[in-house]
């Protein structure tokens, strides 16, 4: 979409050439006009104060950009620079001076980059946890938090109880074998109240385990079992932590990067299926 790169973003902290997330000129008006009806239909009516701050960001993706940039001047919290080790790496092309967007629209001059996300929620979290909240950003209009694994459970608890993220959409992991902290654990949370989605990420070492979120969201039960099944990450306090998709005595964790696609537990296949190989 070539015209997106032209979208001016005067309050953006980083130099030009940056793509504002889905900055379409026409749609925010349409989306905002939808907002009151959507809010009215929401199962739990929003409190007026919260509705005022959250409503513009909550309607649709296009408006999020406006809301984020609009809040920037008033919240003067300095965001930490994005460290390359946090998984959400800035595009390598970032150092390059911004190419004139109109000149060559076909190969995109620069990919979209994460932008800092400043809101009341992140300000509260930052006040409370300081550097424990490693990063708060938006990428293509999607909000995410990177937190220290030590305070992960506290953050999840707080997100559920205080910030009303009452629906845990998904829990998953990503394996980065070359990193010291090999795994990213990603919690996708949604708030029916704010109609908002936030990803909470943390990094853990292979030997580490994290506390289970089953007590916060019962849906975490199977989701965590699947993460354990596929990555071998242990969740402390999980009521029934065992494999869910693979057979219980299967060896290896298939979604790790050191598990090639053709690998299988030959011994299990021979004993249980009575064939030489599954291939």
């Amino acid at each position, binding site marked *: 979409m070539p015209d997106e790169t032209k979208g001016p973003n005067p309050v953006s902290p980083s130099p030009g050439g940056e793509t504002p997330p889905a900055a379409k000129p026409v749609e925010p008006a349409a989306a905002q006009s939808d907002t009151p009806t959507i809010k009215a239909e929401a199962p739990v009516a929003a409190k007026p104060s919260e509705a005022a701050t959250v409503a513009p960001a909550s309607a649709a*993706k296009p408006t999020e950009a406006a809301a984020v940039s609009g809040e920037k001047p008033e919240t003067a919290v300095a965001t930490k620079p994005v460290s390359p080790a946090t998984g959400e790496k800035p595009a390598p092309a970032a150092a390059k001076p911004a190419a004139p967007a109109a000149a060559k629209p076909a190969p995109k001059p620069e990919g979209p980059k994460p932008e800092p996300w400043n809101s009341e929620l992140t300000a509260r979290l930052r006040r409370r946890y300081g550097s424990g909240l490693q990063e708060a950003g938006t990428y293509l209009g999607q909000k995410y938090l990177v937190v220290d694994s030590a305070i992960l459970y506290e953050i999840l608890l707080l997100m559920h109880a205080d910030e009303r993220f009452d629906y845990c959409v998904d829990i998953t992991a990503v394996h980065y074998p070359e990193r010291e902290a090999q795994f990213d654990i990603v919690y*996708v949370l949604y708030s029916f109240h704010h109609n908002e989605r936030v990803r909470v990420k943390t990094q853990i070492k292979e030997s580490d385990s994290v506390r289970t979120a089953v007590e916060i969201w019962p849906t975490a039960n199977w989701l965590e079992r699947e993460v354990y099944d596929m990555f071998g990450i242990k969740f402390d306090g999980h009521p029934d932590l065992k494999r869910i*998709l693979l057979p219980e005595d299967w060896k290896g964790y298939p979604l790790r990067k050191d598990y090639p696609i053709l690998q299988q537990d030959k011994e299990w296949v021979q004993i249980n299926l009575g064939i030489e190989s599954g291939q």
Partner: protein
Amino acid sequence: MKEFETDYRHAKPGQGGPGVVDYLDLDTKDQTFLDSTELVLNMGPQHPSTHGVLRVILKLDGEKVLGTECIIGYLHRGVEKIGENRTYAMFNPYVDRMDYVAAVSNGLGYCEAVEKLLNVEAPPRAQYIRVILTELCRIASHQVWLGTHALDIGAITPLFYCFRDREEVLRIFEKYCGARLTTHAFRIGGCLYETYDGFEQDCLKYCDFFLPKLDEYEELLTTNRIWVERTKGVGILMPEDCIALGVTGPVLRASGVKWDLRKQQPYESYKDFDFEIPTGLNGDTYDRYIVRIQEMRQAVRIIRQAVGGLPSGPIMAKVPKVIKPAVGEVYVSIEAPKGELGYFIVSDSSTQPYRVRVRPPSFVNLQALDKMVRGMLVADVVAVIGTLDIVLGEVDR
């Protein structure tokens, strides 16, 4: 849709109103049917009412269910691992094989996610075509659900009616892209195929054909005494339980939560259309039936609007030949016929995704089975599995 006369949620066992099945309280010991010991019964994976290869271990007291455990994974094919080893475009047909009765929706979700990662948007015409096909697919998926669900409960006729009428949808798919079930209808950035001559007429003709058929299904079931007694008050799920268990889709809406991603976070061109979100009152199997029936009516409404307003123009956005999204990750979800279908894709700027995670609605919804059948009868387990509308290809991936 008739309002319900009785709010049986507060009814005590033995005092239920007409059409209300008494539910049994687990904690009260004196309500067991027999003075029997616990029985562990294995149901599936070859049981016809499990809609595939679901195995449920039931702990029973007489005929009363004390607890269940689901054993899944018989259809596990490692879709997420395959995704990491294929290019973005190559992985597209694989997602059709997850929820194979709603393949079009799967493809839409995946294309949406990769488009988000590339920061492109499909052109308006492509979006309208996508909406038309996805809503047709929603009807087809609900027809499969209704047919098999009714069959499980003992009504054989709806199965034949539903599959007969679904064939007309599949015919449109076949004429559009050559495949009936695993369609691979969409491509990253839009649609590959322009509509065929007479596509609009076919869709409108189908809408006109389908609504009377839907009335026919309703005539068979909605006020049918056996159907009502088998479904009312069975498998109740309260809204707060739904949210805690992450249940989405018609199951959530039947519990009274008016939440549909097509309205809450509109994707594609859904904001252009006027449609309602049907909700239930009681969160039982009967309400879920009503909600899905109403959803089919709304789908017809959307199709008519989309066909009427089908814009002209290109059907493919400018997408590079070799798809190499910038480093980053996105989570994009759509309202599939069964609930929230999400794709979490991590890109390392190579031609293959670094990680593809599918958030399948069936997998998460199936987790609610235990909550729904505790204290019910064995026969209700069959009804509840049917009403959850799971597809094992998606549960196991």
